């Protein structure tokens, strides 16, 4: 399934839910408190940049707003967003998203817009408490605005769904890290996309089924043990030396870039005619971060539990702790036998663009070759990006043959 197909399919699903069954609450930053949103009876749906959107931001945003926010704004101005009851912006993540939230309120006064502010410092329990109170405040606002109170039973159901999703998707990620041919990357991307657009039993069942199939096909090999070990280590954010058999003829690349959608990577690979098996892990992207967030604890205060879960996810470039992030990247590159790292940088994205030189240096020190790809949500330069990817893979191949 192509990126565009996945988007259209998921959007049509979001539309159906939005109109016929439940209200849809769109969110922009991947670490939304989906369990709390679902506990209020909403469908939380990740609002993503879409290719082919005609620019309609010029009267409100300067061109140096990040391409992601420009795309979202244009979608809204062009009436291309799926029907949403409300939209959730993040605070304290990046300046573009923060300001665009304010601008949105002025330009589209009939839209219901909320902001959830995240801690950026590693302040332990103080950070958990802050985020828990922010989420509690969001919950109160949802109830006030829509008359939909928080339901503990719906929260428990939502927490169970996200747990199932994450466990299965983590297994698939870890499996692909060793044997990428176990599941096409496009299939992984579509599964994540569908869940993020509409987290329900149907989307979770699909993921669980894919994980079971992978497990069955791997049962006879000796890969299950290292796969489970990798999964646990990815969750902890620290990998140790692993030995596993892999195809040394085929290049193994990892992709990094804070705001990159797995679906966008599929489109790029497909356009360049590159085998999806080359992409071993989409480290630090939307997909990876969503997968490797610890499940929330069912005991105790739900708001604190969700805050703790969100803050357990892989560190964002918007947070304190660059050295920890780089150490994690080095672990992965070294221990998962990665040949090349593709660093995607969204135009005018401060977090992506600031971190790219550090990632590049870390990879180079680990003996991994690097390709930096400036990328925008429209994939407007797709042909050129494809050619660069092809050349990069050829370089790796010839390097491996030496």
């Amino acid at each position, binding site marked *: 399934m192509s990126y565009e197909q996945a988007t259209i399919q998921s959007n049509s699903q979001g539309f159906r839910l939005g109109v016929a069954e439940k209200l849809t609450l769109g969110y922009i930053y991947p670490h939304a408190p989906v369990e709390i949103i679902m506990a209020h009876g909403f469908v939380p749906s990740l609002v993503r940049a879409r290719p082919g959107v005609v620019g309609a931001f010029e009267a409100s945003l300067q061109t*140096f707003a990040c391409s992601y926010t420009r795309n979202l704004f244009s979608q809204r101005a062009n009436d291309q967003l799926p029907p949403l009851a409300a939209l959730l912006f993040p605070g*304290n993540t990046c*300046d573009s998203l923060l300001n665009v939230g304010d601008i949105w309120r002025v330009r589209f006064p009939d839209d219901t817009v909320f902001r959830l502010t995240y801690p*950026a*410092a590693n302040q332990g329990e103080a950070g958990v408490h802050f985020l828990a109170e922010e989420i509690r405040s969001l919950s109160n606002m949802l109830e006030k605005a829509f008359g939909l109170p928080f339901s503990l039973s719906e929260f428990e159901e939502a927490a169970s769904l996200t747990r199932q999703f994450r466990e299965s998707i983590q297994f698939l990620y870890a499996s692909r890290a060793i044997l990428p041919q176990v599941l096409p990357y496009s299939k992984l991307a579509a599964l994540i996309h569908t869940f993020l657009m509409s987290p329900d039993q149907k989307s979770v069942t699909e993921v669980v089924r894919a994980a079971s199939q992978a497990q069955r096909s791997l049962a006879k090999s000796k890969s299950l043990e290292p796969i489970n070990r990798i999964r646990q280590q990815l969750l902890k954010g620290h990998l140790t030396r692993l030995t596993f058999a892999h195809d040394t003829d085929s290049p193994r690349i990892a992709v990094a870039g804070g705001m990159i959608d797995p679906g966008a990577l599929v489109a790029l690979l497909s356009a360049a005619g590159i085998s999806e098996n080359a992409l071993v892990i989409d480290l630090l992207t939307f997909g990876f971060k969503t997968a490797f967030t610890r499940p929330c604890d069912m005991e105790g205060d739900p708001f604190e539990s969700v805050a703790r879960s969100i803050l357990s996810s892989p560190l964002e470039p918007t947070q304190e702790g660059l050295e920890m992030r780089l150490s994690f990247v080095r672990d992965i590159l070294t221990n998962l036998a990665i040949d090349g790292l593709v660093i995607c940088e969204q135009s005018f994205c*401060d977090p992506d663009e*600031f971190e790219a030189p550090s990632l590049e240096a870390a990879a180079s020190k680990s003996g991994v070759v690097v390709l930096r790809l400036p990328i925008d949500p429209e994939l407007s330069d797709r042909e050129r990006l494809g050619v660069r990817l092809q050349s990069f893979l050829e370089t790796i191949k010839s390097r491996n043959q030496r």
Partner: protein
Amino acid sequence: MAEQEKRTEEKVYRQLRTNSLLQQIMFRYMLEGHAASENGRLAWITSGFPVEIPVAMGVGVNYPEQYGAVIGSQKVGPQICGFAEEMGYSQELCSYARSSIGAARYPEKSPLEGLPKPQALLACNNICGTVLRWYDAISEMTGAPVFLFDTPPTQGKQTPHHREYVRQSVMRLIDFLSTTFHTTFSEERLREVGNLSGKGIDLWTRCLKACRNRPSPLNCADRFLAMAPIVSLRGTELAVEFYQALLEEVEGRVAQGLGAIRDEKIRLLWDDIPPWFTIFRFFNGLAARGVVFPADTYTHAWSGSLSGADLVDSVVSVYSNVYLNKGLEAKVDKMCELIKEYSLDGFIMFSVRSCKRYSLGQLVSKELVMERTGVPGVVIEGDMVDSRLFNDAQIQTRIDALLEMFI
């Protein structure tokens, strides 16, 4: 001599006598930074950081943003930013950050041979989120640890959990400084520094308010230069000394009816950071056309003093509620307030490509301010340090269009 006096008299603007004192003070500040670095006690610090705490704990401070202004005003922004770009940093990133990274890479090729080497990097995100990533990059180059004083942006009134979180940041900061610089915290010393900081801010605020007079005793460039001590020497006797002298001169001008420019016709508000590389040419060019800027949103940002029985609580309140941490509505309110209080005829918004936190939203706030105040405004686009991003002709055309509305 007579010829020289005549030339001075002919200039469209009046130079401040206190500029020479400013130069002396800033030179001393620079020497103190070098001495602190040599003694292993220097921190680089962002302009919105609660500087009173490191100062009270005996830590020397230098401001890379201010150094960025020096790079800009010496017109070497493109070259120094270029050093960072060679290292892989995108030209789309903040030019304060790029110039700082570039100068840290090649201090010998940079103005004043770069900033002295820091032993810690203290970032507060109440002015933007970029400071953390910028200091992370400097940390990789210098080995100095980064401390983030996290003040999440506020919406309306500051909530109790926000206060508590920022309070924890203060405690964490004290621990960090104690460990990094082997120093101790004393509330008594913080009160002394806080008092000095408050005195400096009070004097500075009085200088700013004097510009309500017609003619305005200060223009934009005057204030942008004179703000240096309130940014970098807050909490010191030096800052108080300077602002006492400045206030005396400003009040003298008011008493004599002397304006910052010779022939004040149009009074405008300036929004955002100035283009440092053309600051005199730009504002004096407008002064020649009778345009003065009695107020701006940038130099008015340093206004909160530490006070009260609970000083930590005061730090929490002052540094969480700075101008750039409060959102679009607060910015619009501030602009409208300044336009009214300073009897301004219009406004110019400088859309600084480097500064998303300050600049994104200007297209919308321009409309809101015009609607609320009834005065016209214009948005011009460029950068504060990187002159490659400044199209002079395009900017002049836009300003001409604004000025035509006053004729």
